């Protein structure tokens, strides 16, 4: 379908829903339906147009329709030795760019390269009045107007229909190596902090069950020097790539089974969590995956006292999910959220309640 006719169809649906008090739920392949709050609204397939609109390796950006498969984008980038440095989780073979943006998630390299929103350069969006709006652009530095494109990252389809997205891309590192060390949790946290405060080429870390994996990326000479300092054993190259990918996709054994999966985000120096359950650390301890039946309130209490926040990522008691999978917001912050939602979507058409019941 032509882009303009697809946008015309979307516009008609938006205006129609707005007029009769209906709701819409934009979606791609559905790979991330399990995230966030329950789905509501008439499904609206955003894959009506797909494909890369512009990609210029030496300008370090790619623009693609929201319905484009993220795997296709990554394959194209890889053929030019480039990558999405925030390593977005796909959670499904057909995951789309729009879903990646809307869920706002980043993978292992986030600890070194930055998060998804750090790489957003521009977005075009259809708002609740059916207007097509473009924010940002294709250049790295652009401070004209409020940074609406980054606001859209992680908004779970509640602010509008994302039509196309421009992301900054980076060259793949010249070389990579994964080191494996046997350490307990506390010792792993201490070492990661100490390494993090030094100019070392760490690009990912993960600890689980007494085993710490650290990925080094960059010039071979720098990797070799860092490897000597860090110690441990070098993991076999291919196995290591598979390791980080299966971690990103939650395909490792830790993620199997039915126990509720919490994503706990913590400030850099937070200690071991005093909560029963199995834990997997990432991002030098700033992201902790927790399989635990702990009471949601009690867990949130502990985490927020440490300056962090917790998300019920997968599973969990129905009641806990209903109360909200995301950390509750302070009232004055929620008030701004409500007014922003009203600004973009005055009739409340898009993905009601997906992020917070109030939005």
């Amino acid at each position, binding site marked *: 379908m032509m882009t303009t006719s697809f946008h015309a169809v979307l516009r008609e649906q938006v205006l129609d829903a707005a007029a009769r008090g209906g709701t819409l739920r934009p979606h791609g392949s559905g790979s991330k339906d399990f995230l966030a709050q329950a789905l509501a609204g008439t499904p609206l397939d955003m894959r009506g147009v797909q494909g890369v609109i512009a990609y210029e390796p030496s300008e*370090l950006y790619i623009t693609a329709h929201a319905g484009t498969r993220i795997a296709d984008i990554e394959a194209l980038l890889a053929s030019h030795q480039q990558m999405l440095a925030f390593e977005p989780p796909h959670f499904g073979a057909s995951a789309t760019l729009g879903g990646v943006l809307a869920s706002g998630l980043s993978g292992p390299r986030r600890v070194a390269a930055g998060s998804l929103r750090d790489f957003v350069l521009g977005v075009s969006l259809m708002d609740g009045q059916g207007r097509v709006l473009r924010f940002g652009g294709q250049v790295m*530095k652009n*401070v004209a107007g409020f940074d609406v494109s980054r606001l859209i990252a992680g908004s779970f389809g509640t602010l509008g229909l994302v039509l196309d997205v421009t992301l900054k891309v980076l060259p*793949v590192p010249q070389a990579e190596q994964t080191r494996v060390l046997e350490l307990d949790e506390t010792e792993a946290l201490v070492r990661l902090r100490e390494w993090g405060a*030094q100019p070392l080429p760490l690009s990912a870390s993960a600890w689980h069950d007494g085993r710490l994996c650290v990925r080094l990326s960059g010039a071979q000479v720098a990797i070799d*020097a860092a490897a000597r300092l860090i110690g441990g054993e070098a993991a076999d190259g291919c196995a290591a790539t598979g390791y980080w990918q299966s971690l990103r996709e939650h395909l490792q054994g830790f993620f199997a089974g039915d126990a509720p999966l919490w994503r706990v985000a913590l400030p850099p120096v937070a200690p071991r969590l005093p909560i029963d359950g199995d834990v997997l650390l990432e991002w030098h301890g700033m992201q902790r995956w927790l399989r635990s039946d702990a009471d949601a309130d009690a867990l949130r209490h502990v985490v927020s006292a440490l300056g962090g926040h917790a998300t019920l990522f997968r599973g969990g008691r129905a009641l806990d999910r209903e109360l909200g999978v995301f950390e509750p917001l302070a009232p004055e912050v*929620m008030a701004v*959220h409500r*007014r922003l939602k009203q600004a973009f979507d005055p009739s409340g058409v898009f993905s009601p309640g997906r992020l917070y019941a109030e939005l």
Partner: protein
Amino acid sequence: MSTATQALPESVTDTATLIAELARELPADCLITDTGRLRAYECDGLMLMREMPLVVALPATEAQVIAVLRTCHRLGVPVVPRGAGTGLSGGATPHAQGVVLSTARLNRIVSVDRLAQQAVVQPGVRNLAVSEAAAPHGLYYAPDPSSQIACSIGGNVAENSGGVHCLKYGLTVHNVLRVRLVSMAGEVMEIGSEAPDSPGYDLLALTIGSEGLLGVVTEVTVKLVPKPRVARCVLAAFDDIRRAGQAVADVIAAGIIPAGLEMMDQATTAAVEQFVHAGYPLDATAILLCESDGTAEEVEDEIARVRALLDAAGATEIRVSSDEAERLRFWAGRKAAFPAAGRISPDYYCMDGTIPRKRLAEMLEAMNAMSARYGLRCLNVFHAGDGNLHPLILFDSNVPDELHRAEAFGVEILELSVALGGTITGEHGVGLEKINQMCTQFAPDELDMFHRVKAAFDPAGLMNPGKAVPTLHRCAEMGRMHVHHGELPHPELPRF
């Protein structure tokens, strides 16, 4: 543009009442009301625009910030936040019926945490002071605007400032983790967090670069990064601007993200050389400065690759800094471009468009033609790695019509930046200066959304009103054409 023209809400309060109400909230030495001392606040770094505020408030605590804002909110008085006043777009230009809220006394470094690689600072802390405080820990704050000895972190947050190292280390938005923001109504919000990916909408992204339109930042947590062990700089001379532009693209295309990648044209090199005696090759049409940092091994490796690429791109001369003194000498001229412009010309006007890198040569040639047409000299310095241009238009405001020509020249550069697929401002902000060009870059519906976003934070419209986002009415009056995606309405017409 001598007087700032702003859309003002109807003034509802007389100055005496305002002063009396503020005096109830603030100690006497935190209020400036006499004309003599108010003069110092008449303008920011954009000295072409001046306005006298009614009062300047200098709160020393967050509680006093809240009190000032609540008072002004109640009285319907506009507030203009101000950091160090180095902004170049008039963001801190006072409002004739308003209060200037200066953060000069909120200047405490609250904490520096080596292992967390974070510092908590008040907004009035100078950019360089953060790096100085972090230095004993082997850390620094990466965004380094040329104004870093003076500009404040609060101002950096408001402008999303960058520096020569932002190609590799990011802008303010990539290096700030959390702010406390006080709304016009006096409510305090924690935005962002010291833990990654705070819940809800990314209000931090909205706040950074919001030019003081959404609230007053009272505390900032910044990310600190480990100081690289080694940094070295390559200086390459070119006799052709296109070749220099191509060399920049070649470096990036080879998978190298240098710590800095800057370009100066011949006029700039000549102007700064008199000033800093760096030994620049004066016969070169353009010079590139390319910095590499990291471990000694990494730097050596990268410099060798960069050298080969620049050589292949036709550089006429390549020098590599052999020690720290030489590296600083290479940079001295680039960092002194503004003062050098001020030395060779009574006035200069600094522009800030960004264009896609590949259009660099085209842009330069167009600006040379404009320079001839307006009869004004122009020095060109760029953050070449990210396409951010800083043409310095030289003029003399005492010569009739030169200011007017300089402004027209500037407008033409900005509009061409948009037409080439770029933006009117890469890091200096819109403020009052570029407000008309916002009508070129954005369609009315987009501007409407910006107004809605502002209203979500500031329903009363009293926080730095009249800046950054033009009214639709103003755009209609200006008769500006919105350039859609780089497609000009009449592409067949010559424009430069």
